[in-house]
């Protein structure tokens, strides 16, 4: 007996992931649209539906009358099995039509471990995985998102990549597509033309050759493709489209609330942080625009909470103007404003009280490194004094728990820096017990979470070797031994997933074969902890003669051609080299507001670069 899609809804866990029909989801008449777009997020509904970028583009595309954009997520194992058994292809949530008949399939690539999930989704859609095996009858398969700052390990599977912010460039791409579709669609011609749009990277138009030592010898554009593809930015955030409504899910998702974007980019330049470089320069929205957009969003969704979204919300230059404005209506409508990672100090007492700052869920710091020397090396501008004085204030106000985030495996890190993590945590514990105003009769809990550093493209650490799993495990043991009290609880992230992430973050095109083979051997859900299987990956790489250490654990020379060198995200190599050298001298670089360091992003003459 074979089941229909409707039957499957009765058999799976959480059918709300697959049924569609949520408030504000967009249903159009398919006879009346010209371009059907499947927006794919290679993870579960609950994860993908929490992602702001998808909400923006979903709204933007559907504003265009002849485009119908639908949402597609990775089905859970039970649903996937039933779909495969019953010959049901991956479908758009809005129309429930199989996406292999759509014009475009667009993925957002947020993390390297979702690569195999994307392959699985193409496979579930019944499409050939490789771009070369597809023809004019297939949808154009595209991708964007932070991972496409180095899309080489997935280059063979996609027809084109969109670099940087997608709002304008994707509409230009659709316009080109309309013309080609009307004239009888030829995929190769379309891709050659698309490569001429700034921000569009067509990987098949670049030939890569390698040296004997495995490094890249040359990257040669063909058919008139540009030698360097520059990312796109939105110049004026006050004018760019922002959705006045989000799809409101039925089931509980990771972040189920309104989100108001307040700026893009980050002024800080923490050297380990890719987002801090690839989204430059900082461009802010004005308080008036944020206020109006937040209000419309809350009214159209009914959300009881919304957050201000950015890489570092306390750096918004007009926070003191914005927050009272938002609070004026939010308080009346009984809507909460959630402010992630804000400093407890730095607010007037009245504003702090209105924001309920001290009743918020937790006191959190991200010192990232245990000693001032290493914090200087990574350009993390947070001192021990700042942490301790904020903690003291919080303890006086009745708090008893503090969360600290660190990274291990940072360039130049020594065992002394690892001990520093334990020492700093201990000082917080001590400051609790020394505090005369501490909450009576209660103990303190300092929870320390340590992730493993992964060097990323377009950061000053792009040349650095990643610590091996053994080194990370040794450091982990040393930290355990250095912690002397039960008041400090330690959580250490898995080194194995970081290792694989490290291989793909700085990988080249030869890894496409590894991905395809690993997928064939069952790796589909690497980002979901319980489904991750390092051994399969090691076996695949062994069988294909690929050395993962070449990608993850090798120091590159400054003059080596890196797999992403033909892409341009605004920051110059000269600047990154200088930053790398400063890191090795433990010297800091001022943030963009203090003084400009000439990173290269000023080419756009926008935002903080011209303030």
């Amino acid at each position, binding site marked *: 007996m074979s089941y229909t899609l409707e039957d499957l809804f009765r058999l799976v866990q959480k059918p709300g992931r697959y049924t569609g029909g949520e408030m504000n989801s967009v249903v159009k008449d398919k006879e009346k649209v010209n371009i059907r777009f499947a927006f794919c997020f290679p993870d579960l509904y609950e994860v993908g539906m929490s992602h702001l970028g998808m909400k923006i583009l979903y709204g933007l595309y559907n504003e265009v009358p002849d485009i119908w954009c639908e949402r597609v997520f990775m089905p859970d194992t039970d649903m996937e099995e039933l779909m495969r058994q019953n010959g049901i292809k991956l479908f758009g949530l809005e129309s429930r039509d199989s996406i292999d008949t759509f014009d475009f399939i667009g993925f957002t690539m947020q993390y390297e471990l979702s690569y195999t999930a994307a392959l699985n989704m193409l496979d579930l859609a019944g499409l050939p995985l490789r771009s070369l095996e597809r023809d004019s009858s297939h949808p154009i398969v595209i991708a964007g998102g932070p991972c496409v700052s180095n899309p080489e390990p997935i280059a063979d599977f996609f027809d084109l990549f969109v670099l940087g912010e997608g709002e304008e460039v994707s509409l230009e791409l659709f316009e080109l597509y309309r013309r080609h579709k009307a004239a009888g669609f030829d995929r190769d011609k379309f891709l050659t033309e698309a490569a001429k749009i700034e921000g569009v990277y067509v990987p098949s138009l670049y030939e890569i050759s390698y040296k004997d030592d495995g490094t890249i010898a040359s990257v040669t554009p063909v058919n008139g493709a540009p030698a360097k593809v520059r990312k796109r930015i939105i110049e004026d955030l006050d004018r760019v489209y922002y959705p006045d409504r989000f799809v409101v899910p039925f089931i509980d998702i990771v972040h189920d609330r309104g989100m108001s974007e307040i700026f893009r980019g980050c002024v800080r330049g923490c050297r380990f942080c890719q987002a801090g470089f690839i989204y430059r320069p900082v461009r802010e929205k004005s308080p008036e625009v944020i206020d109006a957009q937040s209000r419309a969003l809350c009214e159209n969704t009914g959300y*009881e909470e919304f957050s201000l979204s950015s890489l570092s919300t306390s750096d918004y230059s007009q926070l003191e103007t914005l927050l009272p404005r938002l609070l004026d209506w939010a308080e009346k409508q009984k809507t909460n404003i959630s402010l992630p990672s804000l400093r407890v100090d730095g607010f007037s007492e009245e504003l702090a009280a209105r924001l309920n700052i001290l009743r918020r869920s937790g006191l959190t710091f991200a010192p990232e490194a245990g000693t001032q020397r290493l914090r200087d090396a990574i350009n993390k501008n947070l001192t021990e004094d700042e942490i301790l004085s904020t903690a003291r204030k919080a303890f006086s106000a009745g708090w008893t728990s503090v969360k600290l985030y660190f990274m291990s495996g940072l360039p130049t890190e020594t065992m002394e820096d690892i001990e520093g993590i334990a020492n700093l945590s201990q000082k917080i514990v001590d400051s609790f017990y020394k505090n005369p105003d501490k909450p009576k009769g209660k103990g303190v809990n300092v929870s320390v979470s340590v992730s493993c550093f992964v060097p990323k493209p377009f950061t000053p650490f792009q040349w650095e070797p990643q610590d091996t799993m053994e080194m990370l495990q040794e450091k982990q043991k040393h930290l355990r031994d250095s912690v002397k009290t039960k008041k400090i609880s330690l959580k250490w992230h898995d080194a194995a997933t970081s290792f694989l992430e490290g291989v793909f973050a700085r990988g080249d095109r030869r890894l496409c074969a590894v991905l395809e083979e690993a997928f064939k051997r069952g790796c589909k859900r690497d980002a979901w902890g319980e489904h991750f299987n390092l051994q399969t990956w090691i076996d695949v790489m062994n069988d294909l003669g690929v050395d993962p250490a070449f990608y993850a654990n090798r120091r590159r020379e400054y003059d080596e051609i890196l797999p992403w060198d033909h892409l341009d995200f605004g920051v110059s190599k000269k600047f990154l080299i200088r930053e790398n050298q400063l890191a090795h001298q433990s010297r800091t670089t001022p943030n963009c507001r203090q003084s400009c360091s000439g990173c290269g992003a000023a080419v756009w003459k926008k935002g903080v670069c011209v303030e």
Partner: protein
Amino acid sequence: MKEIRIRFKKIGRAKYISHLDLTRTMIRAVRRAGIPVWYTEGFNRHPYVTFAAPLSLGFEGLNECMDTRLVEDMPMEEMVTRLNSVLPEGIEVIKASDPVMKPGDIAFAQYRLSFLKGKFKGIEGNIREFLARDSILVEKKTKKGDSKKIDLMPLLEKAAIETGDSAVMLEVTLPCSSTETVNPGLISAALNDFLTEKYGGENTLFCDITRRDLLNAEGLPFE
């Protein structure tokens, strides 16, 4: 403060909204609609809504019931119009009115189970044969978490079979109160077991279950 009873349909795509998710959906709908409802106290204030008899995931409901409280007056018709303009596909408010009975008065619910004819050959004859048995014993989970055996037969004595063009329908009235509830899914599951016993193999015979109305102990429609 004024108590208000809202009756609504939950059909089509909306039948896969679980009870917990329905609560959240309605809270947000009430906020979108700008209805002056009373908010619960505490840190996470939200509009007060409560449902008299939760409906299982996957069932349709034709006359479901949600109670709320108004802090300001609003004409009933306006409330209905406002809610319907902001509700997702499949949820539709039929009526808003003053509550007549107490939620605790609900004693029974009327259900329709419909079996598509195309899905199983001779389904009607099989249903008749199934209902002609002396007893239909099923395992029923109790509130404490263990299970007990109950006989569905007495409940099915008054069941009516109706044959439509594409489906065979079974109309039943089952207990639905705080002290005793019988889920109509037990009937379709028992029918599946019966078919498996008779024909062998796996027979997952899906049926659409619709709760048509809620009744009080005298069998009168809940109002």
